[in-house]
């Protein structure tokens, strides 16, 4: 789960990581008040959950109130990578003497929280990783010992010279690690971490993602979620035991298992079709889940045909068949449905569905993919 910069900075402040005074604004009027409160040059920053806000014109430095209002007028309502800006952060501007990148992330390879620090602050770290990987200092943090202050100092001494700056930066990093572990984050970035013209080290930007699996331990952070409509659909699906992601194609898919679901989508693509979604009904055999899944598929008006691909393991094919029959009872289905049942109780499942003439059956994934594409072409 992602949170906005202003929310991340609120958490930072709770952990005593220095951030600039900030006011979150939903309207231009609020920006006026915010400017008066801060009473100094400000930065007006779009709060949307995508990167590249600066490039898109979503971040403006403003030396006067009029300029701040002008910026707010432009940015509020702006579209950045498909997301509408609904709020802006107004923060006291900083005279930057130097800037750095600091990040913590759950790392697959080292099976630890990985610290990344770079003198290349303020730019996208993925870019640096591609073009100048040697400019990123990486350190796997021992999960039992934690990040020790001396380690933080050792890292920053590789990119800073001034002992006073290093001490401040190390102190921030130790706090960031504590925050990371205590909040079950999966990513925490300060980009840039700046040194201002008064030798103060400040977190100028803040990015935080939380581990969805751990949100149950952190209702206060879970409550910070600001989902787009598509994401709300995904969350709704999660609550129903489904994993659902909407895409742009016209073939709805219902599969059991994430890997098989991806492979099914790949197969549709391979044979020239276009999947409308990723939908994994998971491992349990509850027919109700199949009903919910059908609801999600049919709710998407772009869907012109449905491919159901089940390889029964824990999931029993007869349960899926039963769920499908239940769904037919409560909803009108007027698009073609291709179904492939294999594995546990496949025979029983097919038996249950044999009287349903609208269903197109298939033996293999490939056959199913071909048939569903064919069906969309006919439709």
């Amino acid at each position, binding site marked *: 789960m992602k949170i906005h910069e202003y929310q991340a900075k609120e958490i930072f402040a709770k952990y005593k990581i220095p951030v600039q005074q900030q006011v979150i604004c939903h309207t231009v009027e609020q920006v006026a008040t915010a400017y008066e409160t801060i009473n100094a040059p400000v930065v007006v920053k779009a709060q949307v959950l995508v990167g590249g806000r600066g490039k898109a014109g979503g971040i403006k430095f403003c030396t006067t109130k009029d300029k701040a209002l002008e910026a707010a007028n432009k940015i509020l309502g702006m579209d950045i990578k498909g997301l509408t800006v609904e709020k802006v952060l107004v923060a006291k501007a900083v005279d930057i003497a130097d800037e750095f990148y600091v990040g913590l992330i759950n790392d697959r390879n080292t099976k630890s929280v990985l610290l990344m620090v770079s003198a290349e602050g303020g730019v996208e770290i*993925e870019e640096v990783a591609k073009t100048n990987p040697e400019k990123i200092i990486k350190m796997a943090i021992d999960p039992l010992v934690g990040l020790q202050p001396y380690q933080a100092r050792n890292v920053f001494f590789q990119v800073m010279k001034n002992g006073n700056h290093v001490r401040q930066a190390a102190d921030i990093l130790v706090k960031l690690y504590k925050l990371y572990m205590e909040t079950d984050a999966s990513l925490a970035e300060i980009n840039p971490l700046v040194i201002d013209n008064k030798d103060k080290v400040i977190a100028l930007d803040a990015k935080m993602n939380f*581990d*969805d699996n751990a949100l149950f331990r952190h209702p206060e952070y879970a409550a910070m979620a600001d989902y787009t409509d598509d994401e709300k659909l995904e969350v709704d699906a999660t609550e129903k035991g489904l994993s659902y992601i909407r895409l742009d194609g016209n073939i709805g898919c219902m599969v059991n298992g994430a890997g098989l679901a991806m492979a099914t989508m790949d197969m549709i693509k391979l044979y020239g079709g276009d999947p409308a979604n990723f939908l994994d009904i998971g491992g349990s055999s509850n027919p109700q889940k199949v009903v919910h899944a059908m609801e999600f598929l049919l709710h998407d008006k772009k869907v012109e045909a449905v491919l159901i691909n089940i390889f029964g393991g824990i999931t029993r094919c007869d349960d899926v068949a039963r769920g499908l029959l239940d769904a037919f009872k409560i909803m009108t289905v007027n698009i073609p449905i291709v179904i492939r049942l294999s594995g546990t109780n496949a025979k029983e499942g097919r038996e249950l569905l044999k009287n349903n003439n609208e269903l197109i059956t298939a033996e293999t994934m490939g056959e199913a993919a071909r048939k569903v594409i064919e069906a969309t072409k006919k439709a």
Partner: protein
Amino acid sequence: MSILINNDTKLVVQGMTGRDGGFHTEKMKAYGTKIVAGVSPGKEGTNVNGIPVFNTVANAVKATGANTSVLFVPAAFAADAIAEASEAGIKLVIAITEGIPTIDVIRVTPILEKNGTKMIGPNCPGLISPGQSLVGILPVSIFSEGNVGLISRSGTLTYEMVNQLTTNGIGQSTCIGIGGDPVIGLHYIELLTMFEADKDTHAIVLCGEIGGDAEEQAAAFIKEHVTKPVVAFIAGQSAPPGKRMGHAGALITSGAGTAEEKIKAFEAAGVKVAKEPIEIPKFIKEALGK
């Protein structure tokens, strides 16, 4: 022969008295897995269909000599159960549980290392050495004894692969679902090493996914250290960047972990990459000169 589990595997089931734990314990037992104990705090002294239940893994190990454990414990308590197994002397833990917080897995990792405990998963279907032992939730009917080892990040996709193999007359030595989470126990390289050393494994199927660079690392490792033929498959070629496809691990972030990169890496390592699961038995037969 096989890797990790065989006729000597003595299994303790953690969370045996739960719904899933009970169901799959029966399945495993029916397959012939030697289940020697279950753990369920507060129920020591009872038994479930003849399997004695203990309060702690330590008690179970002491009384039964269990060497392997399988976990059906809820996500919030799973890391603790893994640590318990490891500290009690269990040498292989199979964590079926899905939804364990990643930080919990990270924290338990050094404990496993300290005790020399191997872990499969979490969020995995387990593993099977056909004809010998099943530990996990794999549907047994599709497997057959033979000489192909299989490693997969996925569950049902594995079944799809195995089904293709078995229906084409190709049996398996051991099939392992390593799990789809960002941080997991044994990964490709450790398992490739074991299969390479296993006399009865003649070829290996590796079933990967988008996200991370484990497949690229596996490709590089195969090039250097694996003499047996390997056939690969990568799921998620059609997945858009930035979207998490069910598996927490299956997330393409910019410039890393795409299917194209992985396929290229495998092909550069001389590994044949199947476009459809159906191609796998064909490639295996070619590789083994059948």
